[in-house]
């Protein structure tokens, strides 16, 4: 599919960043690796500006929550090289209380709302973001609803109890 192989991308990254890139894998052919919050912006800007790789397009930024792990909050970037038709998925894991990561709006304007959405649902602070406030939920919401401890419905409500099927 792509004009350059995942191995080429990974080799270039390893050459530049060495052990800052960990747990590289390719589920369904999409190169995936982890890094730290200190290195994410250098890696993204290297991917974007490298003459050969040219990952010029930010597809998506989103979050994930794995409770009861050492670093439970994840930020996931999908970057796409239009020139080479290759995608890369980068993950950064952060601590649960007050997770902070530098913003990608310095590289792509499009990251603005994606980061706002991620903040809105996971409570991840993107440092340096030009206007980080809630985007889809109401402003006076106090929780971050996509975190796993937040239930889909109020567990105390009784009007939907079904005594036969044990809801």
């Amino acid at each position, binding site marked *: *599919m792509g004009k350059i192989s995942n191995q080429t991308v990974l080799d270039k990254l390893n050459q530049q960043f060495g052990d800052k890139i960990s747990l590289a894998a390719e*589920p*369904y052919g*999409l190169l*995936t690796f982890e890094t730290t919050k200190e290195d994410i912006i250098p890696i993204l800007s290297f991917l974007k500006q490298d003459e050969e790789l040219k990952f*010029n*397009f*930010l*597809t*998506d930024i*989103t979050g*994930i*929550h794995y409770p009861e792990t050492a670093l439970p909050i994840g930020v*996931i970037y*999908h970057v796409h090289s*239009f020139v080479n*038709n290759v*995608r890369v*998925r980068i993950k950064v894991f952060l601590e649960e209380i007050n997770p902070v990561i530098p913003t990608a709006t310095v590289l*792509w*304007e*499009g*990251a*603005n*709302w*994606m980061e706002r*959405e991620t903040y809105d*649902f996971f409570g991840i602070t993107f440092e340096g973001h030009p206007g980080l*406030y*809630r*985007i*889809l*939920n*109401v*402003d*006076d919401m106090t929780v971050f*609803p*996509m975190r796993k401890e*937040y239930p*889909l419905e109020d567990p105390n409500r009784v009007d939907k109890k079904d005594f036969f099927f044990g809801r």
Partner: protein
Amino acid sequence: MDHPIIAARHELTETTTLNLGPTHPATHGVFQNVLEMDGERIVSGVSTLGYIHRAFEKIAEHRPFYQITPLTDRLNYCSSPINNMGWHMTVEKLLGIQTPKRVDYLRVIVMELARISDHLICNSILGVDTGAYSGFLYLMEQREHIYEIYEEVCGARLTTNIGRIGGFERDFNDTAFAKIKKFLKNFGPVLKEFEELFNRNRIFIDRTAGVAAVDAETAMNYSWTGPILRACGVDYDVRVNEPYSSYEDFDFDIPVGTNGDIYDRYLVRQEEMWQSIRIIEQALEKVEKEPKGIFHAEVPEFYLPPKEEVYNNMEALIYHFKIVMGEIDTPKTEVYHCVEGGNGELGFYLVNDGGRSPYRLHFRRPSFINYQMYAPMSAGMLLSDAIINLSSLNVIAGELDA
């Protein structure tokens, strides 16, 4: 919270704050723009969204895979079959299901019909917003015919819930094929007539050409995809770059614009409809050549058996039970799959932990990402231009808010 509900006021200027939306007819959906106006000209704007946010990503974490399809309907409800198919293909990619060629071609037919209905609404509404109502009426009738085809295939019209994981719930019947052929025969002349009304129309060109022009660099910086990116001259189309559902078997062109203005977006969408007709014609030919009666992959672990089988056949009953109760293991992995939706790259990022429902599901909604440039690009524009700019972006509130 210092969230700007009204646009910033300066002491020395006399600007007015205008609330465009949330339920203004010109926005064609429930979202708000708070604009700071200097007479007819927009000085700055703030977009407020989330009015129909329904927490689909959270709900999806509590539902088995096959029950997420109706959630995807409600993203871009102008072309829900594309969303449905995108979701089915994501799960099929996760589970490693190979669909038969005939299923792929039938899916292509449905998806291209959906693309036509999406573009047709966008372009005809653009006409309405520029003051030409009649073209809208011509094309709206054709959308009705597309909905009749959906009805024949799956029983529903708008929120279709069409198809199943592995294929379709039933085969296309002869009436469905007859309706598709009749639609193809009748749609071309109507679209031609519509183009004759608009393409060289002095008023329409004056209103749209050169308005809200965006260069390719800026568009890609804002992560634009779909017809509006192609109007800027970038030939990115998921159907070609990462073919899914056997799109590589089809012969079609990707129209691109030059200026990225509203007129180019209109022309790109118009040409895409012609290309969709081409694709459907080819797909019908290909379906003819495939063995009849195949409408789903042989995956009894995930494809619900027909009801009469469930009552009369032991294995079918077991599979039915297992599927409904979610007793079948799925791989612990993650997958990103994208399709070319009506507005651009519609992506599904699915993280699976091996259970019956996703651990995390994220929709990459093109409207949401395309729309964020709207407020910055409106600055300095006339209000009437900003309105048609909004319709040419084809922002669908359901896809905006998820």
